[in-house]
């Protein structure tokens, strides 16, 4: 196959290139996007970063850095586009992708999941059934955005889709697991938000000091599994005696 059978390339302002994949959002197409990113990275072009999303790969560059490489009358966009089109035209063999699953423990309900009941009532099922449905399948991370390490996930069971809160909360703790419309996700930092919060994970999604600052990256799968509040505190490294004092 060739990438250019599936893509459209265009400028985004004077400092970015978009490569849009034409098919509807799917995991299969996403694997092709990951493959293209590898090829672009291997080409060692003078760009600053590559930001993938559901259907689009955005390549951000500093036009002045690119200009230093140009020895003809092309502008920086044209020069980079030409280089990328060479990659898009190459005959590529699609290799089997290694699927990586990141397991995320979640303490559902109670003080950590104040909206679990509401979500259950909305669908006329029990909270336990909500947890079973939510942990019953894996979710694909299409991109990180909105906040550091925050995953945009695909694959929520449609029978759990729930509208956002009427009034957003001013503060949602980091680690909160929620549902908004037909999306589910985990808050990576404390922030205001309107999601229905059904639980909380003790696992940190964003650790700026760490060599790998985020737990997740685009292209991995997430598997939630339920834990008790005691397990939550153990995993969080908190002192149980202190929290009961």
């Amino acid at each position, binding site marked *: 196959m060739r990438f250019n059978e599936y893509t459209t390339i265009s400028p985004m302002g*004077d400092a970015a290139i978009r490569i849009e994949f034409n098919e509807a959002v799917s995991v299969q197409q996403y694997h092709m996007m990951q493959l293209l990113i590898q090829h672009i990275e291997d080409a060692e072009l003078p760009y600053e970063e590559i930001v993938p999303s559901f*259907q689009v790969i955005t390549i951000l560059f500093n036009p002045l850095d690119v200009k230093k490489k140009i020895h003809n009358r092309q502008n920086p966009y044209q020069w980079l586009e030409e280089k990328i089109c060479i990659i898009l035209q190459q005959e590529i063999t699609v290799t089997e992708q290694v699927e990586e699953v990141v397991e995320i423990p979640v303490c559902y309900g109670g003080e950590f999941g104040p909206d679990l009941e509401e979500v259950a009532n909305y669908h006329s099922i029990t909270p336990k059934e909500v947890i079973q449905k939510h942990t019953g399948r894996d979710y694909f991370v299409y991109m990180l955005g*909105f906040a550091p390490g925050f995953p*945009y996930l695909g694959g929520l069971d449609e029978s759990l889709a729930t509208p956002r809160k009427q009034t957003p909360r001013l503060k949602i703790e980091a680690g909160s697991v929620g549902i908004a419309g037909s999306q589910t996700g985990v808050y990576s930092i404390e922030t205001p938000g309107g999601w229905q919060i059904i639980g909380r994970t003790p696992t940190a999604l964003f650790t*700026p000091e760490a060599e790998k600052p985020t737990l997740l990256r685009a292209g991995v799968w997430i598997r939630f599994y339920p834990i008790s509040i005691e397990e939550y505190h153990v995993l969080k490294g908190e002192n149980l005696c202190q929290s009961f004092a």
Partner: protein
Amino acid sequence: MSIICLKAGTLATIQDIGRIGYQNIGVIVSGAMDSFALKIANRLLGNHQHEACIEVTLRGTAFHFSEDTYIAITGGDLTPTIQGMDVPQWRPVLVRANQTLRFKGAKKGLRSYLAVQHGFSIEEKLGSKSTYLRANMGGLNGRALQEQDEIQLMNTNWDTPVLPIENEYFSTVSWHVRPDFYKKVRKRHRIRFVEGNEYQWFTTATQQNFERVHFDVAMSSDRMGYRLKGFKLQKDVQQEMVSEAVTNGTIQVANDGQPIILLADRQTTGGYPRIGQVISADLHRFGQMKPGDQIRFERVTLDEAYEALYDLEQQLNHIEVSIQLKK
């Protein structure tokens, strides 16, 4: 050695050129709103042009210098004074020990950059000293400067040229390198853009009016984005967007039909139609734009956008040459 923040003022944060390379994990770029002024402040002192400065906003911020300190102030004119005397901007200044520098208020523009020679001793987080307020990272303890904050300096072996103009409080030179843009900053701004990815979704009338109307900069504008009020932008195409990366200067139009220009503290992704992209050469102008100011847009080609950027870079190079000649 350090300087002490005596008054926080409206908003003062540590900013460099921004945190580049982490948008794929959702970490925003941050950095100076007026990177052109930041680069000049650094060049005046022989610093690397991307070194972190203090970005001072509007008014009220004050710093105490316990020892002689070699600084430069660029950007908007926020009336910096020492002992009631105006401190000259766009040139190197040696502030004497035990003096207090106060930014009394914006006469022109909105943001000033205070650089010290060799820079501030601030730990880099993910390759940058810039303050990322929402994630509490970078800068000084991940937050805006507060009263009594002590900001350490890197190195105080001053490499000082001759500063012939002297008084009890500071010494400086008679020359300056203020670019024309900063002499002429007024309440009306011209901003050039290239067509955005969804430009064709908007009606012909909206496309035309977008360049005719003066938009007002709304009060809710901040480092994240400038919100504009003008007319309601109309689309022929009504289609849900799938979120994707946005960039510095993306002009997106929310459901209320009002444009928002995404700037230094923007989120990494967005999902609204984009009528345009502000050209790189004009991004620094937002650093000096206040709520209540007015914007008029002008559409240009990609080639014109690059020409404007090369011009700006050439201005910076000319400034560098004149600084070297003055030494």
